[in-house]
């Protein structure tokens, strides 16, 4: 990435096309920049806007987090999951209506054509050709749209639903438009200019009526929807998979309340959805509910079956369950504590494996859906080459494991934030439509060095800055303590020599190393950066074959200025940094040799002459004294001196071993 490749935004007002993920639970907006797609955030750094609208007594609407907070106290006037209603009639919604607390009515006066000029209504999800860079723009669709269909004579009618808030009837399009308006205003505030164009994503199974309803919502929000993009297609765009060689890709999307699995064929830069399956009522909320049921069940059996949980407690329980689920992604166990009043305190430790057994039946269902999607595409699971993970739940290690087990190892794409990947992909599509050249955005070299933390807090670089992509580097590491069974791999980025001055990209553990003396395990750490700048770090212990890996997008969230700043800083502090690194390495070497000498003295100390012993003790004492200071050169010299003084010891040890081996054996036995 060189300065000459870095171009300003194309000039001209209103040129920006927003990429929008209009979700069932949360919505996000992103925009293409020369540094790649970027999520638009509010001043607190939140990118996600909860897809919730709350109406006050005066009829004023509140959108997003503030509205979500009202859901408990004001359930009848708080609308969520409006996406489930888009383009649907009463008959389609029986199942949904049971669980939605607000009132939904059919409107007999308004009947509309369920089909647009695009063709026959397709309520089943078949092969849907996705819009991608190679396709013609299909934004010209006019015709029977929900808000204007009054006079038209429908060819086939479907009753349109309305949400009834205190007698005020609102269409799902109008409600979705409120969320879109919120996103548009947030983007305008962030970018300082008016925005009136967008790319909006929809599930691959959305039929024509649902897609049209989404377009209409955009228009009500003052946005010309330049293209509707399938969510799984957007996810592959965010990873740049359309620019790689042709491939068959599965997109596994486990969100808050819905699960979708799609199989896509990417050929010549165009994505085609081969099949899609899913469950519109399966998601993270179900996993939360398992935890809530576990907790409430145990509370009742301990404190009495008649314990009531008022709405505020329920809401607290929901938050607690969600937090527990999130924590168990990193921790092996977590403790929940609930004060029930009257001195009743409930405390319970939940382990990750316990959570996994609660989640198993839900995961079984997603895998069964995946199997069906693969079958429907006419493929075998071996033919799926990559699996893109979307939705917050795909952060859960158990979800990744199960998906990895089904599709096979090494296929999962998890580097991009799974909550943001669809919006980022929408922004990529928007960038293509607004004529931004994409190949300029691809990194041709790594802008910053990449490495891992080594003993003593030094940064051990594996891939140096300016290395041409794609590239791979590996190095052998070992343990420092006898019997060590796990190592932490801390992945770092930056030009400085000490960990504290570098950027942490992620960490993982390699566990299950068989106990061996310090220095015996051979741990190979491999860094691989593909042409899209996605970094795969893997660690394997060569004797036992134990492996662990992580995937990261190193350039994520860094601007060109920040990168330049980090590089300049490294020049300014180069000498001190290198000296500090050298001191750490020298100290480590000193520690290693001191332990080796101690061990050898226990085994073979008696074999040394008094002079040899005194000489060795003196050099060891000197090294120990110097280690209290920080003169790297002096420590280095002292290490060499110990090495020399210890030579008779190692020789004596070798001789002893040899003597034990050959004792009582004849020459011909060798």
């Amino acid at each position: 990435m060189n300065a000459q490749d870095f171009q300003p935004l194309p000039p001209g007002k209103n040129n920006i096309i927003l990429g929008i993920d209009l979700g069932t639970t949360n919505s996000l907006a992103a925009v293409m920049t020369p540094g790649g797609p970027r999520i638009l955030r509010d001043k607190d750094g939140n990118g996600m806007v909860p897809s919730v609208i709350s109406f006050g007594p005066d009829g004023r609407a509140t959108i997003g987090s503030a509205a979500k907070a009202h859901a408990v106290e004001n359930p009848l006037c708080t609308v969520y999951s409006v996406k489930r209603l888009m383009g649907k009639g009463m008959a389609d919604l029986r199942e949904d209506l049971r669980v939605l607390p607000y009132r939904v009515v059919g409107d007999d006066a308004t009947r509309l054509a369920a089909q647009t000029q695009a063709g026959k209504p397709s309520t089943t999800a078949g092969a849907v050709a996705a819009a991608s860079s190679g396709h013609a723009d299909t934004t010209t669709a006019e015709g029977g749209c929900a808000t204007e269909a009054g006079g038209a004579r429908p060819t086939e009618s479907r009753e349109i639903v309305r949400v009834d808030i205190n007698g005020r009837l609102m269409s799902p399009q109008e409600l979705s438009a409120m969320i879109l308006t919120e996103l548009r205003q947030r983007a305008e505030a962030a970018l300082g200019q008016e925005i009136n164009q967008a790319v909006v994503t929809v599930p691959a199974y959305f039929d024509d009526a649902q897609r049209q309803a989404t377009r209409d919502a955009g228009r009500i929000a003052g946005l010309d929807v330049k293209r509707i993009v399938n969510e799984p297609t957007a996810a592959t765009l965010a990873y740049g998979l359309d620019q790689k060689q042709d491939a068959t890709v599965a997109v596994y999307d486990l969100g808050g309340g819905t699960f979708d699995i799609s199989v896509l064929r990417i050929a010549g830069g165009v994505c085609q959805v081969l099949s899609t399956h899913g469950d519109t009522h399966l998601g993270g909320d179900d996993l939360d509910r398992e935890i809530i049921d576990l907790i409430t069940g145990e509370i009742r059996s301990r404190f009495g079956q008649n314990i009531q949980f008022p709405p505020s407690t329920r809401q607290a329980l929901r938050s607690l369950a969600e937090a527990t689920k999130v924590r168990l992604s990193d921790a092996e166990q977590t403790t929940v504590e609930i004060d029930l009043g009257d001195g009743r305190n409930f405390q319970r430790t939940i382990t990750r494996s316990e959570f996994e057994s609660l989640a198993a039946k839900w995961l079984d269902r997603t895998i069964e859906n995946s199997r069906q999607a693969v079958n429907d595409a006419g493929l075998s699971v071996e033919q799926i080459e990559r699996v893109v993970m979307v939705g917050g739940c795909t952060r859960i290690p158990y979800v990744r494991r199960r998906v990895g087990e089904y599709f096979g190892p090494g296929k999962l794409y998890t580097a991009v934030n799974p909550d943001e990947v669809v919006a980022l992909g929408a922004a990529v599509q928007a960038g293509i439509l607004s004529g931004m050249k994409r190949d300029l955005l691809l990194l041709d070299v790594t802008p910053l060095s990449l490495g891992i933390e080594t003993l003593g807090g030094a940064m051990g670089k594996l891939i140096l800055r300016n290395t041409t992509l794609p590239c791979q580097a590996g190095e052998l590491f070992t343990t420092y303590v006898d019997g060590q069974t796990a190592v932490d791999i801390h992945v770092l980025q930056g030009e400085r020599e000490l960990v504290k001055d570098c950027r942490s990209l992620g960490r993982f553990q390699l566990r299950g190393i068989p106990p061996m003396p310090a220095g015996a395990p051979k741990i190979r750490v491999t860094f691989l950066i593909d042409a899209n700048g996605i970094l795969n770090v893997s660690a394997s212990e060569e004797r036992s074959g134990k492996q662990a890996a992580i995937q990261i997008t190193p350039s994520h969230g860094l601007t060109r200025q920040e990168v330049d700043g980090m590089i300049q800083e490294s020049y300014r502090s180069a000498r001190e940094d290198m000296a500090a690194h050298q001191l750490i390495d020298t100290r480590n070497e000193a520690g290693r040799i001191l332990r080796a000498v101690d061990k050898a003295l226990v085994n073979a100390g008696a074999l040394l002459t008094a002079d040899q012993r005194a000489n060795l003790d003196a050099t060891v004492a000197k090294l120990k004294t110097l280690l209290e200071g920080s003169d790297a050169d002096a420590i280095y010299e002292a290490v060499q001196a110990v090495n020399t003084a210890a030579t008779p010891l190692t020789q004596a040890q070798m001789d002893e071993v040899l003597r034990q081996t050959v004792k009582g054996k004849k020459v011909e036995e060798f």
Partner: protein
Amino acid sequence: MAITLTERAASEIKRIFTEQQMPEGSSLRIAVKGGGCSGFSYVLDVATKPAADDESFQTNGVNVICDPKSYLYLAGTEVDFEDKLLGRGFVFNNPNAKKSCGCGASFKA
């Protein structure tokens, strides 16, 4: 002060460039990184073009580039190529190095 290649080293680099089908105008990147048995170690890489702040040199028909931080420790270095029975590879004669390890791959400044 510069970084130079001996004739033998330059012809070995040219051979590698041809073998790797590197485009016309490619450079040899030399860098230093922390770690290694004597403190610092040398890194050689091929590059199609220099970065904006690289130091660059022409030596025996080869473009050599080096980032400013590494150059602090490489100024004046001559890179040679040895093809002996025991040990075939590039050798660094670095005036900044107080000590080099036996294998010559790392040094102490």
